C-alpha cells in the first residue's frame, strides 16, 4: 500500500519546494517517503515534475500510477493524465485552465488568486500544499511548523502569510474532497524513531565532511553540483576548503596537490568533466596520491541529456586514464549504504594511495528519501601516514615494499626530510628514471597493491530467495544489478516473489576490483538470469564476461535517460520466464 503524487509545471514554478515540504512533513508524520525529480535543462519554462511516493516502508523507486496530480499548468495534466488512477484527483487552478468536461477527478483550487490574497504570487506553492494535505486527510499543524522553520530568520510576516496561504488552499480543496485518498500504514508503528529526509548529493556531502574531507575543488556540472553546494554551505562550520576551479583539469590537479600536502581531498563531476579529469586520474595513479572522485553519471555522449540519468560511464570509470595503474570503483546504491560507501572510498584511497572513483548518477544524486539516522561511529578516519618512530631515513616516497604501499609522509612532516612525487617514471626517491629494470620494478610495485585491494571489496548484496539459490536447488530468477538501480530491483524481486516466483537479487556496490565470488557461485544455479542496467550496451555484463567468462541469459537495458520502475523490470522478466 502506497500513495503516489505527481507535482508538475514549468521550470521556475517551484514544484521542488512543494514536494520537499510535503516530503519532509510526511517523513515527520512517520511515513517512508521517496521523492524523485524529473527536470529539463532549463531555468524557466519547459516541463518539470516531481514524483512523491510514500508508504510504510521507504520506497526505493517511483511508482507508475498517481493518486494525485498537482497540475501547475495545463501541460502537466495533458502529459500525465494517463497516469492518474480512476479514483485519483487532480489539483488545478480553474483560473488558469479548464479540465475537459468528462474529467470527473478535478479539484479546482484558485492557486494564484488565493496566493495573492495571502500575500503574494510566490505562495501559490503553499496553497497547493494545503490542498494536498486535505486530500490526504492531514491536519495543517506539521506543515505550519515546517514553514516556520523554513522562514525562520526572515520577516515574521513571511511565515504568517505562508500559513494563511496553506489554510486557504486547505479550505478551498476541502469542499471537493476531504480525506478522499486512503493512506498507507505508518512506518514507525508508533515507536517514534525519527527519520532523515535528504537526497543523494547531501548524503555524500555529509559523509565526506564527517569522514575528514578537508579540500574539495570542482567545476559545476549537473548532476554533481549539489555536493559542492552542500560542502560550501558548511565550510565555516567544518573547516573545509571548497574551491570552484577554472575547469575540471584544475579541479582534479588542485585536489591532488591538497592530498599530496596532507588534506583528505575529493572532487566531483559528471561524464564530460570526468573526460577532462582522466589526465589527472592517471597522475594520481603514477604519483600514488590518494583521491576520491565522485562521477555522477548522466546520459552521454558529449553533453547528452544534462539533467537525466544513466549508468553509461562504467567502462569509462574502469578504463579511463592512460597507462596501467590500480584504482577502485565503488558505486552509490541507495542512501542507506552510500553514506558508509563513500567513507570506504576515502579509506581505500588513503590505505592504498590510489584514486578511487565513486559512481553516482542523476537518479541517486537528486532523489530524496526518508532514511534512518546514520551511525557516525562507523566512519573511518585513519590516514595511514608514516610516523616518526618507524620512519626510515632518508625518506623515500616510493620505497619498495612487499604489498606495494610505501610509507607515506607529508611535505614538512619530518624536519630535514623531503617528499618528492613525480609523474615521470621514477626511482624510490621520486627522481626521474628511464632504466628498463627500474621501470618494471616500479610498475610492479604499484600493481602489487591489487590483491589486498581486491580482498577489501565487498561481495554483492543478496536479496530475496538468495540462500536457496546458493545451496544448489536453483531454478529461480536471478537479477543482477549495480549502483542506483537497487531500489527498483528490490521492489521487483518483492513483487515477483509475491506473485509466486522464486527470485533473487545480487546487487554490486563495490565494482572494481570485481568481487566475483558470490556471483560465480550463484549464476550457474539460476534458471533465468538477468543483468539489469541503465545503459544501452550492458557494460556490467561485459565486465563479468571479461572477468569470469560467464554470461547472463538475458539483459534488461534502459537508456532513455529515465530510471527504472519496478514494473518495467517485472514486465521484461516475465516475458522470458
Amino acid at each position, binding site marked *: 500500500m502506497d500513495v503516489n503524487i505527481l507535482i508538475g509545471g514549468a521550470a521556475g514554478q517551484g514544484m521542488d519546494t512543494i514536494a520537499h515540504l510535503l516530503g519532509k512533513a510526511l517523513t515527520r508524520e512517520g511515513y517512508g517517503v521517496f521523492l524523485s525529480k524529473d527536470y529539463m535543462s532549463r531555468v524557466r519554462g519547459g516541463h518539470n515534475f516531481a514524483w512523491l511516493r510514500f508508504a510504510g516502508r521507504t520506497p526505493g523507486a517511483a511508482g507508475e500510477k498517481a493518486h494525485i496530480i498537482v497540475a501547475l499548468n495545463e501541460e502537466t495534466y495533458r502529459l500525465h493524465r494517463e497516469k492518474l488512477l480512476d479514483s485519483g484527483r487532480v489539483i488545478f487552478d480553474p483560473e488558469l485552465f479548464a479540465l475537459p468536461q468528462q474529467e470527473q477527478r478535478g479539484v479546482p483550487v484558485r492557486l494564484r488568486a488565493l496566493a495573492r490574497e495571502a500575500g503574494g504570487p510566490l505562495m501559490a506553492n503553499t496553497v497547493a500544499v494545503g490542498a494536498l494535505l486535505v486530500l490526504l486527510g492531514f491536519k495543517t499543524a506539521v506543515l505550519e511548523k515546517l514553514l516556520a522553520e523554513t522562514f525562520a530568520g526572515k520577516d515574521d510576516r513571511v511565515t504568517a502569510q505562508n500559513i494563511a496561504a496553506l489554510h486557504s488552499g486547505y479550505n478551498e480543496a476541502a469542499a471537493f474532497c476531504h480525506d478522499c485518498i486512503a493512506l498507507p500504514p505508518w512506518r514507525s508503528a508508533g515507536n517514534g524513531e525519527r527519520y532523515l529526509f535528504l537526497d543523494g548529493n547531501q548524503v555524500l556531502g555529509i559523509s565526506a565532511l564527517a569522514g575528514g574531507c578537508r579540500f574539495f575543488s570542482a567545476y559545476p556540472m549537473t548532476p554533481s553540483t549539489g555536493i559542492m553546494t552542500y560542502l560550501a554551505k558548511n565550510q565555516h562550520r567544518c*573547516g573545509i576548503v571548497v*574551491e570552484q576551479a577554472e575547469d575540471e583539469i584544475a579541479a582534479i*590537479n588542485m585536489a591532488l*596537490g*591538497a592530498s599530496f*600536502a596532507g588534506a583528505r581531498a575529493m572532487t566531483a563531476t559528471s561524464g564530460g568533466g570526468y573526460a577532462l579529469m582522466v589526465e589527472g586520474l592517471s597522475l594520481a595513479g603514477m604519483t600514488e596520491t590518494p583521491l576520491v572522485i565522485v562521477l555522477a553519471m548522466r546520459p552521454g555522449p558529449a553533453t547528452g541529456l544534462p539533467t537525466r540519468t544513466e549508468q553509461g560511464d562504467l567502462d569509462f570509470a574502469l578504463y579511463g586514464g592512460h597507462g596501467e595503474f590500480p584504482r577502485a570503483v565503488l558505486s552509490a546504491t541507495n542512501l542507506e549504504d552510500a553514506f558508509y560507501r563513500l567513507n570506504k572510498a576515502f579509506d581505500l584511497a588513503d590505505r592504498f594511495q590510489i584514486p578511487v572513483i565513486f559512481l553516482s548518477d542523476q537518479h541517486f544524486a537528486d532523489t530524496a528519501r526518508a532514511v534512518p539516522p546514520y551511525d*557516525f561511529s562507523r566512519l573511518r578516519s585513519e590516514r595511514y601516514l608514516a610516523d616518526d618512530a618507524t620512519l626510515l631515513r632518508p625518506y623515500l616516497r616510493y620505497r619498495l615494499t612487499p604489498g606495494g604501499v610505501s610509507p607515506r609522509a607529508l611535505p614538512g612532516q619530518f624536519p630535514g626530510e623531503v617528499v618528492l*612525487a*613525480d609523474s615521470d617514471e621514477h626511482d624510490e626517491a621520486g627522481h626521474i628514471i628511464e632504466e628498463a629494470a627500474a621501470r618494471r620494478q616500479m610498475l610492479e610495485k604499484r600493481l602489487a597493491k591489487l590483491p589486498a585491494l581486491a580482498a577489501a571489496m565487498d561481495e554483492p548484496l543478496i536479496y530475496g530467495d538468495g540462500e536457496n539459490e546458493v545451496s544448489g536447488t536453483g531454478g529461480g530468477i536471478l537479477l543482477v544489478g549495480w549502483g542506483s538501480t537497487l531500489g527498483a530491483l528490490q521492489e521487483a524481486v518483492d513483487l515477483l516473489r509475491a506473485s509466486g516466483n522464486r527470485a533473487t537479487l545480487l546487487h554490486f556496490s563495490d565494482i572494481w576490483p570485481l568481487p566475483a565470488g558470490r556471483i560465480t557461485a550463484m549464476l550457474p544455479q539460476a534458471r533465468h538470469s538477468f543483468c539489469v542496467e541503465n545503459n544501452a550496451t550492458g557494460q556490467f555484463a561485459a565486465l563479468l564476461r571479461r572477468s569470469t567468462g560467464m554470461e547472463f541469459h538475458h539483459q534488461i537495458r534502459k537508456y532513455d535517460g529515465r530510471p527504472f520502475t519496478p514494473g518495467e523490470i517485472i514486465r521484461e522478466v516475465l516475458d522470458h520466464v
Partner: protein
Amino acid sequence: MSDSCNNIKCRAEDYLLPETAWCPGCGNFAIREALAAALAALQLPPHRILLCSGIGQAAKMPHYIRVNGFNGLHGRALPPAVGARAANTELTVIVESGDGDSYGEGGNHFIHNIRRNPNIAHFVHNNQVYGLTKGQASPTSEQGMKTGVQVEGVVHPPLNPLALALVAGAGFVARCFSGEKGHLQETMQAAIQFPGYALVDILQPCVVFNKLNTFAWYKKRVRPLRANEHVETDWHAALRLARTWGEEIPIGIFYRVPRPTFEEQSPALRGGEQLALRSLDPLSLAELQDEFY
C-alpha cells in the same frame, strides 16, 4: 627549533643535487643556482619548501633542487601548488616551469590563478621555444621564427605574459634574465616573500633550438632598471615596461602591490591550524544530519 636552519643546513650548495640532464650552456643552470642562493638567503629549510612543476626542461627542477617536489603534468604546475598551499599554509610554495607549460598548455590556470591570488611564486623559464619536444614554437616565440613545424616562420604574434598578468590583476610582476644571476636571485627572493601570486618571467637562451634569441642577443638588449627609475606601484608605467621589447629590454620588478590572498579569504583557513594536521573525529560531526530531520 629543530626544524629551522639552525639545525638543518641551508647553504646554497645544500639545495643543489649533483646530477642534471640539461644541455651544456643551458640557462637553466644559472636559474637553478639563483634559486638555491635565494632559498639560502631566506633561510628556508628544504622540508618547508614545495617546488611544483609541470613537464619540460625547466620542469625538471624538482629533481635538481633538494626540497619537497610535486612534478606533475604538462601545463598543470599551478593547480597542485594551490591545493598544497590550502592544505599546508606553512609551506613556501614555488612553481617553476617553462613558457609552453605556463603560458600554452597551462594558459587557463595562469589566468585564473592570477585572479585567485594564492601565495605562490611562479618562476617561468621563458626561452621562447619548445625544448623538450625539440624546437617547435612556444606561445612567446617571435613572429617569423622558423621551426620544423612553423616551416614558413611563426605566424601568430607572441603572447606578452607580463602585460597579460598586469591586466589580469597580478600583484607582483617581474622580468629577469638568466644571464643576470644576482639580479635574478634578488628578484626571486622578493617574489617568494611577496604575499600573493608573484610572476617572474625569466628570459633564457636555448642553446640548441633558439638560434634567434641567443645569449648574445639578450645580453645586448637586457637592461636592469636603475634605482629610482620606476615606481613599483605605478601600474601604467609597469604596463609600459612590460610592453617594451626590442633594442632595449628592461628587466626588474615592474609591479608590486599586495592584495588579499586566496588563503586569507578562504573561510576554512582563517583559523590558522593546518588542514593537513586537523584532527578528524567523525562522531563530533554527527550533528550535521540534524537539519534533515
